[in-house]
């Protein structure tokens, strides 16, 4: 924890954050990749051959939430 605080504790300035976001997007573009937007994701077709049911997906999320509570 001490190491993380020492390495990452300082909040960046907004100017620096803007530069880093621009750099990140430039890196993605340079790799020929495209970060999808929420609208693109929601509009993409369902393509699963073995989708969970809605109930199973909720159970899947419950497992994650339970683990967080146990370890909190």
């Amino acid at each position, binding site marked *: 924890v001490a*190491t*993380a605080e020492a*390495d*990452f504790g300082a*909040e*960046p300035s*907004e100017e*620096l*954050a803007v530069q*880093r*976001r621009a*750099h*990140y*997007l430039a890196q*993605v573009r340079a790799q020929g*990749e*495209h*970060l*999808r*937007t*929420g*609208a693109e*994701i*929601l509009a*993409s077709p*369902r393509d*699963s*051959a*073995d*989708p*969970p049911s*809605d109930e*199973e*997906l909720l*159970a*899947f*999320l419950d*497992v*994650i939430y339970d*683990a*967080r509570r*146990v*370890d*909190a």
Partner: protein
Amino acid sequence: VSTPDPALLDTDVASVLYRARLFQRMAPARLVGVVADRPLAISVITLGEASYGALSRKWSVRRTAEMLAFYTDTYLARSAAVVTAVDSAGHRGFHDGDGQRFRWPSVCGGGETRTLARLLKGCLVAATLAA
């Protein structure tokens, strides 16, 4: 027209989008307002949680692979991060690319994405259900 700032999704938001797409349902309007035009990304933490959830629920290999493929392809998570997340899902802890070890509940609990956004030094904007 400038591109909106990219957003780092937490596990809850990524799951909402996964579920909405899977069942062709409307996502909450307030959330859509935040993420619709933003390029989106997820962290290795979310991949770890999703992997853990699938393993715990004993999902089939196909179902697990499809879910992880959606996450990695959609959000451009790097393959190395995926391997790390899947390998570590069983004991719920993993290392980032620099060898820094995270025990994910301590990171996820109460503000995972904000914490990660800070760790990334402002690289991404945090988007959470509370946003």
